[in-house]
């Protein structure tokens, strides 16, 4: 009887699977959408299988982003689930957790289900919806957390805002225990950030732009950690940007708080010194900070105080970003450049190994939210990125698949390109092109 199974064999790649401490040259067999074998493929494994020559390439679990803005429903001009998940695949991401600050926000089980449906229709990266913490992200009433979880929500966040009232946050942490899911907080005290548009420091002073002090982040991280400790809640801190937060995370982890944190590629790589051009691609929240903060974030990531990398991919329409610096919206397009930029800045420079970077971009984020991805274990979904670690390319906004061209790495020469991407065993990117 002929073998009807759909098979694909990646031959002779360097297989890097941090979840299983695997790093070695071998073959990777995919069958029916799952990883079937890792190592030396038997002679008959290739029978009828599609073969990809993996020589010189790295086979890694597809990256997992805990912080993506897909903008749909509501702002289709800046991104859609389709364009955003295609952009994700282009950057090697096979799973994205979609932030709920859409219009309307994802704050009910019906809306969670709707977003899952849009993702299925799009058929590129997997989408794990994050539901809002409070109805309308207004900070006043809890969403139906259990029902949202039942429809597929993987965490809760009012991203873009902190839950303003400490009492409300305390209730949310306590109630969220019925779901076992994490609360992801965007930590920002709105009274301290005020009308600020950049990091408060030498640069903001020189340019006369209103500054956002580091304390705007730090005080909320402290507040949230203390409430998480008291309630036994599970806290994940979004887009850490300050040295102060790194210190607080150290303390909180030592004190047994159930707390984890992510950092973005742009906060790991860029400081605020480029803002003198007034280019709005550098306008982001939290703001790009001064060099000492960048160094503290890198140290925190290397020593495990910060748990993973997340992109905070925040596309905007050109029309919206082509405004005076004060008036343009916050956010950068980040998901397609994340790996190459970090590979160039952290791996090529010798700060960390490639397997470590892959761990921080795939295995660890998946584990933080208990997502069934981020690994090449036999039986796991065949979500795979093939990487040419030495290929150099030039970042050009016009070539990005995201509808948002607001990329702060425009014009950068970077190293490391994603050649192939499989999602559930299906080839979504092949020879550098997203299907």
């Amino acid at each position, binding site marked *: 009887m002929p073998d009807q199974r759909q098979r694909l064999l990646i031959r002779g790649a360097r297989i890097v699977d941090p979840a299983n401490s695997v790093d070695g040259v071998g073959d990777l067999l995919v069958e029916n959408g799952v990883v079937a074998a890792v190592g030396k493929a038997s002679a008959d494994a290739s029978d009828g299988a599609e073969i990809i020559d993996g020589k010189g390439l790295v086979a890694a679990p597809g990256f997992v982003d805990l912080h993506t803005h897909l903008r749909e429903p509501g702002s289709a001009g800046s991104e859609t689930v389709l364009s955003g998940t295609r952009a994700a695949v282009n950057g090697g991401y096979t799973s994205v957790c979609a932030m709920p600050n859409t219009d309307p926000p994802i704050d009910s089980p019906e809306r969670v289900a709707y977003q899952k449906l849009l993702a299925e229709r799009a058929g590129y990266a997997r989408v794990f919806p994050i539901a809002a913490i409070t109805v309308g992200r207004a900070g006043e009433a809890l969403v139906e957390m259990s029902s949202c979880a039942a429809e597929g929500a993987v965490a809760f966040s009012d991203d873009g805002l902190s839950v303003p009232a400490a009492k409300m946050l305390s209730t949310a942490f306590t109630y969220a225990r019925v779901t076992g899911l994490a609360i992801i907080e965007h930590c920002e005290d709105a009274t301290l950030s005020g009308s600020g548009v950049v990091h*408060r*420091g*030498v640069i903001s*002073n*020189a*340019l*006369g*732009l*209103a500054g956002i002090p580091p304390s705007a982040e730090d005080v909320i991280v402290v507040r949230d950690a203390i409430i998480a400790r008291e309630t036994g809640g599970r806290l994940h801190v979004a887009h850490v940007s300050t040295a102060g937060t790194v210190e607080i995370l150290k303390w909180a982890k030592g004190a047994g708080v159930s707390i984890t944190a992510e950092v973005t590629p742009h906060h790991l790589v860029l400081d605020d010194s480029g803002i003198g*051009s*007034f280019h709005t691609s550098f306008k982001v929240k939290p703001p790009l900070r001064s060099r000492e903060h960048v160094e503290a974030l890198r140290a925190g990531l290397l020593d495990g105080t910060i748990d993973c990398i997340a992109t905070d991919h925040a596309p905007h329409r050109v*029309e919206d970003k*082509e*405004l*005076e*610096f*004060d*008036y343009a919206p916050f956010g950068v397009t980040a998901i397609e450049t994340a790996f190459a930029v970090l590979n160039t800045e952290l791996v090529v420079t010798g700060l960390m190994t490639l397997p470590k970077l892959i761990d921080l971009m795939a295995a660890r984020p998946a584990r933080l939210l208990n997502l069934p991805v981020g690994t090449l274990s036999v039986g796991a979904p065949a979500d795979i990125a093939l990487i040419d670690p030495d290929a150099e390319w030039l970042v050009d906004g016009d070539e990005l698949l995201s509808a948002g061209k607001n990329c702060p790495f425009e014009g950068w020469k970077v190293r490391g390109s994603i050649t192939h991407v499989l999602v559930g065993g299906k080839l979504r990117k092949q020879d550098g092109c997203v299907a």
Partner: protein
Amino acid sequence: MVKAVKWLEKHLFGLEHLSADAITAVLDLADEYRPIALNPSTTTGTLKGKAVLNLFLEPSTRTATSFAVAAQRCGANVISFSAESSSARKGETLIDTARNVEAMGIDVVVIRHSAAGAPQMLAKTTKCSVINAGDGRHEHPTQGLLDILTIRQAKGRIAGLKVAIVGDIANSRVARSNLWGLKRLGAEVTFIGPPTMLSKTFEKCGARVLYDFDEAIGEFDVINMLRIQLERQTDALIPSLREYSKLYSLTDERLARTKPDCLVMHPGPINRGVELPSTVADGPKSVIIPQVSNGVAVRMAVLTLTSRVRDQEPK
């Protein structure tokens, strides 16, 4: 006839990145233009046949007027356009404005805008020379230049002078432009004001920072008093104007403790009795009126030098 000068800028965005030579070139030419600036029947002819657009998107009377007079004294046609730029951005964007300006055959745009960086943005999308007439809290380069020119005329030099700038430094584009320009020419700049309006971080920009006006008042060769924005008290940075005046007003009593030849300056418009009393504003140490006439001469020099660079560009 314009002398050979070390000026290479098609635009003037600010003084932060100008060389000492470039600043000196403007000051020298402004000195030369002073008689023409003061005489309506004369013109330099340096902008003959050119169109200058005064694009004032934030309320201003004196700077707009000064630029209009300067452009006329250079022989240019002046078109004035003022409107309230609003953060709501309901009207056309600045980029569209720029494209329209270009289509109308304008050579120089003088722009006043409430957002920092707006002149740079405008320059990216037009072929005009762009002159910053004040962008948010960022820079007000022609004010900085006219202040420096006024000091140079009175003192004969800038290098080695001690200049105090007093007031709401954080919100002041005048303070920033003065700092960069004066530092570049070798003066020592001290910022004085309440801590909520003056971050210690300014020390890293090269300024000395003092919170006590009286501490070093006898050291200064120049004291430049900034206008307190009476209309901008929303941030609650000071408890009251009464207390502010007590701490930071240049009173007759304080003036008596300054150097005998200390200059008193103010970019205007003055809140008489708040930053300084009339006795000081109109007193013998005040150079506030010469500042105004120098404003026209400096702007003539800036318009002339930038236009010349633009004319030399390949078409």
